[in-house]
């Protein structure tokens, strides 16, 4: 699929076009240090198409030699990173995997929500989910120019601040090599 898409820009978060996957647990739970501590628990994934919300924990379990389908007592999808945080905060799940950028942004906007959770583990950095365009159109170029200029105008900076982003960077495909490697590892 990536052969039919052009990379337009990559969002810049915390000064880098990178983000992490966070393993979160309820705030009062102090024992968990990794996903392996959640054996037999109820776990919340965000989305089966999400790197941070599904692929990363699956890879971590596989690397540890665990069968993800039997490791947890029960697992479910919330179909949204924020909802993973809500599920863990409410106690519906005892652990969850979530986009680090989402958790950090909500920690600024809704600290009462993220305050009910604790980040137990942070994954290595991965390329921030990019903005892409269908290959062969000039839409991507126009969009790239506009997004790259956002950080140079007051309205653009205000919009970026509301998104908790520093700006956009041109980026390149090597940023996402780690995700691709995870995907390949899980497929083997």
């Amino acid at each position: 699929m990536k052969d039919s898409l052009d990379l337009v820009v990559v969002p810049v978060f915390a000064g880098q076009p990178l983000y992490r996957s966070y393993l979160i647990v309820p705030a009062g739970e102090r024992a968990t240090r990794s996903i392996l501590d959640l054996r037999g628990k109820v776990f919340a994934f965000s989305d089966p198409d999400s790197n941070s919300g599904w692929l990363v924990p699956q890879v971590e379990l596989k690397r540890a030699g665990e069968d993800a389908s039997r490791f947890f007592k029960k697992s479910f999808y919330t179909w949204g990173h924020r909802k993973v945080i809500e599920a863990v905060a409410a106690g519906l799940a005892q652990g969850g995997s979530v986009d680090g950028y989402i958790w950090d942004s909500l920690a600024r906007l809704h600290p009462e929500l993220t305050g009910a959770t604790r980040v137990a583990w942070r994954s290595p950095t991965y390329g921030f989910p990019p903005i892409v365009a269908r290959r062969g159109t000039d839409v991507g170029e126009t969009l790239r120019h506009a997004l790259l200029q956002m950080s140079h105008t007051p309205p653009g900076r205000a919009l970026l601040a509301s998104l908790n982003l520093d700006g956009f960077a041109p980026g390149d495909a090597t940023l996402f090599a780690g995700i691709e490697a995870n995907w390949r590892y899980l497929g083997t």
Partner: protein
Amino acid sequence: MLANLSYRHKTPLAMSLVIVATAAVVAGALVWQGYTQAHLSFIQHSQVLGKTLARTLRPALLHDDVWQAYEILLTPLERSGDAGRALILLDARGQVFAASEPRQFAVLDNFSQAVGDPAVAAMLRPGKVQAVQEGGDGRYLYLRMPVLAEDGTVLGQLVQRYDQSLLAPRFFDVAAGTLTAALAALALLLPLGWLAGKRLAEPLSHLAECLTRVGREVPDAIHCQFPHGRDEIGQLAECFQGMVKELVAAQALEKHLAQSDRLAAVGRLSAGIAHEINNPLGGMLNAISNYRRRGSADPHAEKTLALIERGLVQIRDTVSALLVEAKLESRALTPDDLEDVRTLIAADAQAKHLRLDWDNRIASPDFDTSK
């Protein structure tokens, strides 16, 4: 103390107490009925909610979507004031699939064990009909609604748990409304009851006042008016009036007897005096009669004796009048009476050399001096 209280106060007080007691009993019954209806309405409302939720939760159970079930369970609880309500979706094995209170009812926990209530556990037996059960400690009310697949298979059960304190505001609403109505009714009925009681006791009090006058006042002075009627008060009043009449009659009789006694005493005294006078008087009259019987021819002496005799007869008649049963019979004037006057003044007239012209032509009455 109550025994010394006048019926003028006791009767209105008793009526007021009866009114208050009646109002309290009626208000209590209305509050209880209102609370029961509110409780029933609450259950019916919850059952409707349960039916709707059960249908909505069916896809979540079918697709094993815990998060979807959780969001659906939270939907009716998003309003404020939903504390004390919990919705729990159980799978076909009775394990918690999702709950609105996940910390209390964790996913895959055995619900019956989590609740620890045999009555609730009995209610959770698989079935296709809904059930309502109050928890053993009475704090919670549980409603069970089966979640059925299209073919009627039981996929799971929706349990609604309500803290019964949620009914307290409804109870207080009903109680406040009823209390307000009861107070309004009391405000109207109490004065009427007091007035009615007072009017009922009024004739009795009046009768009691009249009775207290008996003995302190003369019966003639006791004039009491009572309302006409044949009730107990009317009968008492009639008896009272009869008693007063008899007292008046007795008083009159007593007065008459006293007067008779006085007259009898006077009669006895008069009879004594008359007897004492009549004895010598009879002797003197007998002496005159004896003197005449011996045949004295002296006309002057006869004239004097006649004068004395008439005087004695008059004394006898007057004395007889003193007797109680004697009647004073006046004696008619006779020609002899005038002749007696002529005799008495003749000596004086002769001494003074007066000439007396005498003309006595009075007719003699039909009178027997011997009587």
